[in-house]
């Protein structure tokens, strides 16, 4: 095993990690805001990939150009989710909240299976294709662009949450819903915005992944699991923690697959989750 192969694995892991980070950031934002874990996160990712696919297949729009549309669609989807489901279960027991988003995930996935069958699809001849060779390493162009765009989106999200007025209002609501309401921040609207942004992040990640990943109805499951892991690893509710956690997960997945056994990739990531939540329940960058 040469250093080149290891370096290759590191780069691959890094690129995947940035995508995981963005997906996890959406989850983390929603959790931090309203203490609800979106168990339908993977299904939302799947929807955004399908949105990319259909925009390409019906209108010939390449995924990289249809990203704004996908983001808008997903944001709309997030607002719908909030107003039709989450609003009613805000005050319910945690069990009911888990069951509700779990129900949503089953619902979305099986509707997708009903409409589109469980076939695998991919986008033929996307705008981004081929690979670059940099000193012996091969880097897929779509992967590279996807991870860079995810990084940019992540930075924009971070700036939005920490610098803009709406972002600060979001943070205020996340910290204390009632105090924020007293100060005139409408929490219901903030929740809707949180869902819109959270799923918008998923829209970016899904739209970019549609370039090079197979598109099928169960595609979201593993990504959602990794997002849970990333959120726990980074600390529930911490946005910047997601970035580090996503990269760690990407590296573990890719290096573990290379050094130990590729068929147990998922297990390495799961093992990290279990170790982290047992020994450091607040996560690596948790605020609790």
């Amino acid at each position: 095993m040469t250093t080149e192969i290891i370096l290759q694995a590191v780069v691959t892991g890094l690129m995947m990690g940035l995508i995981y980070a963005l997906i996890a950031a959406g989850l983390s934002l929603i959790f931090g805001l309203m203490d609800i874990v979106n168990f339908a996160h993977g299904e939302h990712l799947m929807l955004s990939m399908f949105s990319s696919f259909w925009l390409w297949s019906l209108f010939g729009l390449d995924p990289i150009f249809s990203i704004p549309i996908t983001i808008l669609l997903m944001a709309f989807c997030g607002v719908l989710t909030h107003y039709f489901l989450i609003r009613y279960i805000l005050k319910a027991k945690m069990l009911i909240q888990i069951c509700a988003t779990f129900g949503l995930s089953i619902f979305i996935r099986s509707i997708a299976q009903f409409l589109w069958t469980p076939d695998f699809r991919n986008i033929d001849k996307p705008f981004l294709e081929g690979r670059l060779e940099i000193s012996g390493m091969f880097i897929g162009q779509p992967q590279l662009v996807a991870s860079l765009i995810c990084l940019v989106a992540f930075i924009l999200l971070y700036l939005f949450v920490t610098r803009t007025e709406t972002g600060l209002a979001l943070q205020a609501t996340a910290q204390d819903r009632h105090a924020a309401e007293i100060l005139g921040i409408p929490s219901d609207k903030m929740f809707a915005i949180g869902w819109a942004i959270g799923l918008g992040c998923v829209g970016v990640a899904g739209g970019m992944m549609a370039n090079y990943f197979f598109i099928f109805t169960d595609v979201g499951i593993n990504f959602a699991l990794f997002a849970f892991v990333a959120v726990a690893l980074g600390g529930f509710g911490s946005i910047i923690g997601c970035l580090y956690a996503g990269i760690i997960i990407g590296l573990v997945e890719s290096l573990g697959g290379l050094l130990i056994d590729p068929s147990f990739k998922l297990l390495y990531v799961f093992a990290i989750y279990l170790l982290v939540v047992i020994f450091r329940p607040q996560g690596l960058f948790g605020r609790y």
Partner: protein
Amino acid sequence: MDKLLIAKSEPLWNTDKRIISLIGGFIVLLFALPHFGLNSFYLHLMIMIFMHAVMAQSWNVIAGFSGQISLGHGAFFGIGAYATSFLYVQYGISPWISIFLGMIVSGIAAVLIGIPMLRLSGHYFAIATLLIGISFQIIFQRWEWVGAASGVWVPMTSEDSLLALQFHSSKMPYYYIFLVFFIITFYLVWLLSRSKLGYRLRAVRDDPQAALSLCINVSNYKIIAYVISAMIMAPMGSLFAQYILIIDPDRVFNIEISIIVLLITVLGGIGNVWGPIVGAAILIPISEYSRIYLGGTGGAVDLILYGLILMLICIFRPEGLISFFPKNILERKKQR
């Protein structure tokens, strides 16, 4: 002090005579049912209802009574299924013995998983169990010794055999076996719900801090609930394996098993002994019929319905359908 004594002498067993006879009549009816000329499809339907009711009851013990949401309960089902099939195929051990071996293995697995995991609470525990459930599937898919992804095929006996728990001529014996397990499980869980243990579990669920201050060792009680729950789940896996005679990781460690027990319990009424029966009696026919009439379309129509039902229940009836029944039937009558 007087009040305390009265409360203490109040019988926990006080159930209305009419309700006892109602339940008794119902059990007699269930025993007589196969003789009314049910064809094998209806027998299968009833068997599935019994099986899922017990599985949901198992989930109810950990989630309903002690408040820990496990999303990986299918693991114990799979352990039970593998215990009987594998031991029968490899060593010729009768399923009747290996059902109990499966229960023990399952209980040990529950302790091993429970000790680290049950320190977690809420979402952390739910996600951890989800990951563990999937890990079991991944491990069994690649474990050569137990047949890896192709699973275990149980060789068929030439004729019906009680010892090998195989009945090919009729589904009737399976019906009675599942029925007996169903009744025993429900009786035991009913006892549990009225025992000191049951009340302590609910105390742990409702207010762990207060329970701790009453010297209830919260984490120990959670582990006890988890083990009981696992040991209820395992025999169902064993019986299911003997019922279909072929098991593989995708079937018995499927995440859908963990989902369906949650669905049934939440639909019927979580934390209530009778909830799983109501849930199973409604959901299983929906699933079987939609598979017959709509299954050919390639879509998962039953799952669409499940998801919708689950969301609607969570929004409108978080206590489950059992809350539609008059309360005095469900709870012991107040002593005057």
